[in-house]
């Protein structure tokens, strides 16, 4: 009985010590940016049609970033999850295409701080993308699968400024794929032949700058408003890739609106983040 009491006491003391340390030590703070997206898109998928379809898309994006360790303030990692759906029309506007796209990106960033207002992030990311396009009236080629994974180069600049006694942040970021792997069907091959007969020859391709050109860049403004921070921005994506003598492209221009919040619950909405928590946005 004595030994049990001793063990419990030691455990409680350890917890208390750890709690005290937790209250004083520097800890990385996860910052999350959640946005909804609305924009225009232009799609060329010659497997489905020789003509560029244009239309609108809506989407959701969840982006989180934090430093790796509590002692670290120069190396952060990020996770980005995106979901987009939309529809587009043939140039003659008498046929439509439905499409969806999901993407997950894991990134690592090195933080430079040339001045106390300016922060520059340089790094890389790995992403995997799954999507599809669908033209219902097509026969045996109604669907085109988008499947790829890439290693990307990324960069971001973040500038803090004050206006009307509020601290604003403006961010400009850019991402471009360097190497990867992508699925591209041959023009005359049906998905029946590809998947039912397992004839996947020439379906997967190494991708790099020679056959896949893409960049995505965005401009975000973080606006403090009472006790929340809003995020408004615009993003442009350009993608062109080629394989099996087919050239595809997708161009997006999306407007984004959402919130920025730190993933740590403090007592009360008005309570400020304790000073020992370090955000990768600071």
């Amino acid at each position: 009985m004595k030994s049990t009491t001793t063990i419990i006491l030691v455990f409680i003391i350890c917890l208390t010590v750890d709690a005290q340390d937790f209250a004083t030590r520097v800890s990385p703070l996860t910052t999350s940016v959640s946005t909804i997206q609305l924009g225009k898109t232009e799609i060329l998928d010659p497997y489905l049609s020789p003509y560029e379809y244009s239309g609108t898309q809506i989407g959701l994006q969840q982006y989180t970033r934090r430093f790796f360790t509590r002692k670290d303030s120069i190396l952060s990692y990020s996770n980005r999850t995106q979901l987009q759906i939309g529809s587009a029309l043939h140039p003659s506007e008498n046929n439509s295409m439905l499409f969806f796209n999901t993407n997950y990106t894991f990134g690592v960033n090195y933080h430079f701080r040339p001045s106390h207002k300016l922060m520059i992030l340089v790094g890389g990311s790995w992403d995997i993308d799954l999507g599809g396009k669908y033209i219902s009236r097509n026969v045996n080629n109604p669907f085109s699968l988008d499947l790829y994974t890439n290693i990307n180069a990324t960069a971001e600049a973040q500038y803090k400024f004050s206006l009307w006694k509020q601290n604003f942040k403006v961010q400009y970021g850019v991402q471009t794929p360097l190497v990867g792997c992508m699925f591209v069907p041959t023009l005359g091959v049906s998905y029946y032949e590809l998947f039912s007969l397992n004839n996947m020859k020439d379906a997967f391709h190494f991708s790099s700058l020679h056959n896949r050109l893409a960049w995505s860049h965005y401009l975000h403004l973080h606006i403090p408003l009472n006790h929340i921070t809003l995020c408004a921005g615009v993003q442009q994506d350009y993608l062109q890739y080629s394989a099996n003598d087919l050239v595809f492209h997708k161009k997006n221009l999306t407007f984004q609106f959402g919130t920025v919040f730190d993933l740590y619950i403090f007592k009360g909405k008005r309570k400020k983040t304790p000073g020992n928590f370090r955000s990768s946005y600071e």
Partner: protein
Amino acid sequence: MKKIFFPFTVLLLIVFHSCMDEPAIQPNTAKGNFKALWEIIDTRYCYLDYKKINWDSVYNVYEPRVNKIKTKYEFFDLMAGMLAVLKDGHVNLYSEFDQSRYWKWYSDYPANFNSDVIFNERYLGSDYRIAGGFRYKKIANGNVGYMYCGSFSTGFSNTQIKSILDIFSGCKGLIIDVRNNGGGTLTNAEQLASYFFKEKTLTSYISHKTGNGHSDLSKPKAVYTSPNENIQWQRPVMILTNRMSYSATNDFVCRMQYAPNSFIIGDQTGGGGGLPFSSELPNGWMIRFSASPSFNAEMENIEWGIQPDIKIDIDTTYEKMGYDTIIERAVMEILK
């Protein structure tokens, strides 16, 4: 400075070199739409050489007529006329007001099917059962199971087939009537065939266009029919065909040629061995065309159809008396 300049130059060279040229598209004019259609067939239709069609001369015949066209309806008819040269039931032009078609693959031949007859009391009658798109009933005093399959567009499950074959378990043989079945989904045709095979069997080949040349086709890919793991019919099965057995039905009949205890009875199938694909014109009209040719296990083209094991036409004299002589012959083959 040199350290920066060299990799930067290399990167620029790679990016510059890798700019991808997108193919030029035709304008949305009468000439542009005509040329777009002609080019799609020229580069992607898979039977131009097999059918010995001089597509350049077709261009020379039809292109001068484009200038004389006054309405979109006349233009559609001109394009449809050009496509009829291909003599292919899988080639259709779809517009907002019409769909072109080529039907001579069956309309020039005896019908060999009368739905009024198969629904009389001698065959399906009115008390037949329906499952998975099949209409079925025991005929010939309960000695023969008869299934009518009017389309492969409707899917079916193993459970449904097991139930049907359970009902036919006391029968000496089975008739699968695929007359007037214009096709549907290839996987449905494959699934139905799988119940009649004992082992994995080479039943056909499929190929696809690999380039713009008329004979730029891939090395044919062998297509096997595997037996269903749980359900197998091992007694005689008669497949009834006519000229309207087309497309996926043609594929089903091609597979069933190699099934043990199977006989094809009736008329030659209509064909449709090319898997159709779709493309579009600048004005939004859709073109469907044969893109992937298929062959039987002997590498013979099945675009024009498959010959039956027993060739027989419906005898119109008996037809008027309510007899389908193709079904009667199949019953006779089972009971003999």
